[in-house]
Every structure is written in C-alpha cells, then in structure tokens.
C-alpha cells in the first residue's frame, strides 16, 4: 500500500561494493526492502568503477560527485544540479572522509528541501581516531593506548611502549597489524601517503572481534543497536561473514556512547572482547557499516529508521532483534557494457 515513503528519492554514497566495501549497497538494499519498488535510488559515486554504478536494478541513476578535497562549494554546486534533475528527498553519505563536507552543507541542503540525519562536527571529532583514547579515558571506556605519528622516527617510541605486534592505522581508513620494525615503517609510509598525518600506532589487543551497528537519535539515546560477531575476517580485517549476537554489556556500551556524545545518525563501534571480559573500543565509525543490511535481517532496519528520522518523524526505539542471523558476503562478476563505463567516465552520469 502506498504511503508517504513509497515514492521517496534517496541519494546514497559508498557504492564501492569491493573487497573493502562501502556501506552504500547494503543501505540501498535495506531501504528497498522497507519502502518498496517505488523508491528511487540515486547513487553518488567518486570513481567510474564503483560496482554500484552498474547495478541498475538497485541504483536507478548515478552521478559522480567531486572528491572531498575539492571542498564544500564544489559539492554543493554538484548536489544542486543533481537535485534539479532528481528532486532528492534525503541524502545518506556513507564515507568517513566525506562527512565533514556533508555536515557543513547540511543546512543549505535542508533549505533546498533535502533531509539528512548527521552528527555535528563536534560529535564527529570526538570519536576521531586521533581523539578516541582521550574520549575513552574521559568516559571510563576501554580504548587501547595509542601514539599519533607525524614522522617515521616516532615509531620507535611506540614500539618500545607497545612491543610487537602493534597496529598501525590510517587517519581515515586501513590498518595493519605489524610484527617487526620494517613492517611498521612500511605501513607508516603507505598510510601517510594515502591518508596523511597523523598515522596512529595502537596497542594490539587480543580477543574476539565484535562490531555494533547503531543509530543515535541526537538526544543521548539509541533508536537501534545490533551487535555482530565477525566469523570470517579478510586480510584487510573486514568481516566477510558474521552472526548477530545479543549481550547486555554490548548494548550498555553503545548506550554509554550515545549518552556521552548525543550522537545523531548511524555509527559503528569496532570492539575487541578480551578473555578477561573487557570490551575495548578499537574504532568508532561515524556512519553505517557495510554489513548494515544484517540489522534489517535481524529485525531492526536502521537505514529505514534513519530516513524516517531525517524526515522529522518519530521512530520508537527498537528493543529486540534476532540473535543468530548470519551473513556471508560473496563476490559476483557483474557484466556491463563499455558504453556504460564511457557514459559515467565522460559525462559523470549513468
């Protein structure tokens, strides 16, 4: 039956459904399941070979958008053009690196009639990898010790304190567990070149990897929390299979985070559960995870709830989900024509 959500037009980034996938396709899948076939999905891509660009049964039309480094004016100009063509209702950005710009232009988007549901710049900064340890200390949460590295020679101090193995992390993405000084140096230079300084050296914590996907209401509460244990982890540390789990301690941890930050929007907590029963927060990502469709499968469709909240509707907090829902990711060779590639490469639209 048609309702106010049936004919929405929603723009989504993160169409890179590769071995280090963006959340876009999972968000789209969740939205399609919630709102039905009348929903129009507009993909926003950065590169011509993001798989979502070619998945036309999921993405009605894709527009390339400027890289975050091009700034907010270029982004706003492009979004205004896309809005003229598509009459967007909501935009869901799904990359950490683009959030700063999207948060900045959110008031202008709202004036144009485009809703978002994003954290503030201050909230974004609180959970930044660079600030995470301080955030944990201030709020009584377990966070591994770290060093911010601006020069390669600072690695020695970190290695002396943490010993090997330790984790070398990029400012926005990527992390390597390193076992020798040579590996640490290589990782530092790679991550510094890709994402800039500081590179973060983090104490290695041994345990079971658990992720939490959640949706904060901006008032200190969570509308949804779903926890997942990684069952199969790729060499990039990504979950290739996982199962939903239910543990009050995990729910309490996410609630503490929402309360401490008044977080508004989707987020993901990456947790290491140690044998001693401590939950170490390794990272907090300021957007939905790539496995967010599992939240819908388990009974809490977080992208659906977020769209409703973005549109100003009240959404009652979910209070239960199905533990034991499993996801297994897979690869698929999707076939497209070179003319599609040409279209997106030359004209920036497909």
């Amino acid at each position, binding site marked *: 039956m048609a309702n106010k959500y049936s004919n929405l037009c929603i723009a989504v980034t993160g169409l890179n459904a590769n071995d280090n996938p963006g959340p876009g396709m999972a968000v789209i899948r969740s939205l399609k399941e919630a709102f039905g076939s009348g929903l129009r999905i507009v993909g926003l891509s950065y590169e011509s070979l993001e798989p979502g660009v070619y998945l036309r049964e999921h993405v009605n039309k894709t527009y390339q958008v400027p890289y975050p480094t091009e700034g907010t004016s270029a982004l706003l100009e492009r979004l205004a053009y896309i809005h003229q063509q598509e009459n967007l209702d909501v935009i869901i950005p799904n990359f950490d690196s683009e959030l700063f710009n999207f948060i900045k232009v959110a008031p202008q988007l709202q004036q144009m009639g485009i809703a978002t549901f994003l954290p503030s710049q201050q909230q974004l900064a609180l959970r930044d990898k660079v600030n995470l340890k301080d955030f944990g200390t201030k709020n009584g949460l377990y966070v591994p010790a770290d060093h911010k590295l601006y020069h390669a020679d600072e690695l020695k101090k970190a290695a002396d304190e943490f010993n090997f193995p330790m984790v070398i992390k990029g400012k926005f993405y990527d992390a390597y567990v390193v076992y020798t000084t040579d590996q640490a140096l290589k990782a530092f230079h790679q991550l510094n070149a890709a994402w800039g300084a500081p590179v973060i050296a983090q104490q290695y914590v041994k345990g079971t990897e*658990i992720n939490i996907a959640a949706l904060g209401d901006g008032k200190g509460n969570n509308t949804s929390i779903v926890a*997942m*244990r990684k069952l199969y982890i790729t060499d990039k540390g990504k979950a290739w299979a996982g199962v939903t789990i239910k*543990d009050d301690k995990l729910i309490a941890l996410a609630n503490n985070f929402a309360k401490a930050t008044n977080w508004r929007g989707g987020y993901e907590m990456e947790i290491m559960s140690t044998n001693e029963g401590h939950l170490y927060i390794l990272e907090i990502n300021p957007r939905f995870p790539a496995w967010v469709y599992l939240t819908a499968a388990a009974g809490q469709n977080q992208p659906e709830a977020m769209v409703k909240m973005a549109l100003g509707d009240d959404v009652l907090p979910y209070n239960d989900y199905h*533990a*034991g829902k499993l996801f297994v990711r897979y690869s698929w060779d999707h076939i497209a024509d070179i003319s599609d590639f040409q279209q997106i490469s030359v004209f920036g639209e497909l």
Partner: protein
Amino acid sequence: MKIKSNIATSENGFIFNPATGDSFSGNGMAALLLLAMKGGKSENEIKQDILNRYNVNQAQLDLDWEDWMLQLKEANLLETEA
C-alpha cells in the same frame, strides 16, 4: 550446574551461544544431555537415565560427567554461580 538459559541447542547437537556467537557441534549423546539439562533435569536424574539406558558403570559415568562439565565450562555454556 545449570546450562545458560539463552543457549540455543538443536536436536542434532548443534549449540549456539547468542551472547558470544560461539557455536559447537556435539554428537548425539551431547544433544541428549543438553536437552535434559535445558529441560531442568538434575544431575542425578540425568545420570540415572543414562545408567538405565546404556551399558556403563557408575564410576565411569561419574568420570565422563566430570569431563562433560569441564567441556561445558570451558565453552562458557554454564551459568556462573553467584
């Protein structure tokens, strides 16, 4: 010793701990024991059932039971005593 109430078990011996995501495959005897424990039967009742149904002596059964409890404890499937 009680098995955690949230532990999911199937008739074919598969065990899933929804709090941790741990899963185990047990044999037919494990499935029977888990079913009895989840059904609220006491240690003595379960042992008596086994003695009635299988060709095993009390001493061997006690040893095996101890081993079974150890496995359940290591797998974090037992309620922790207050």
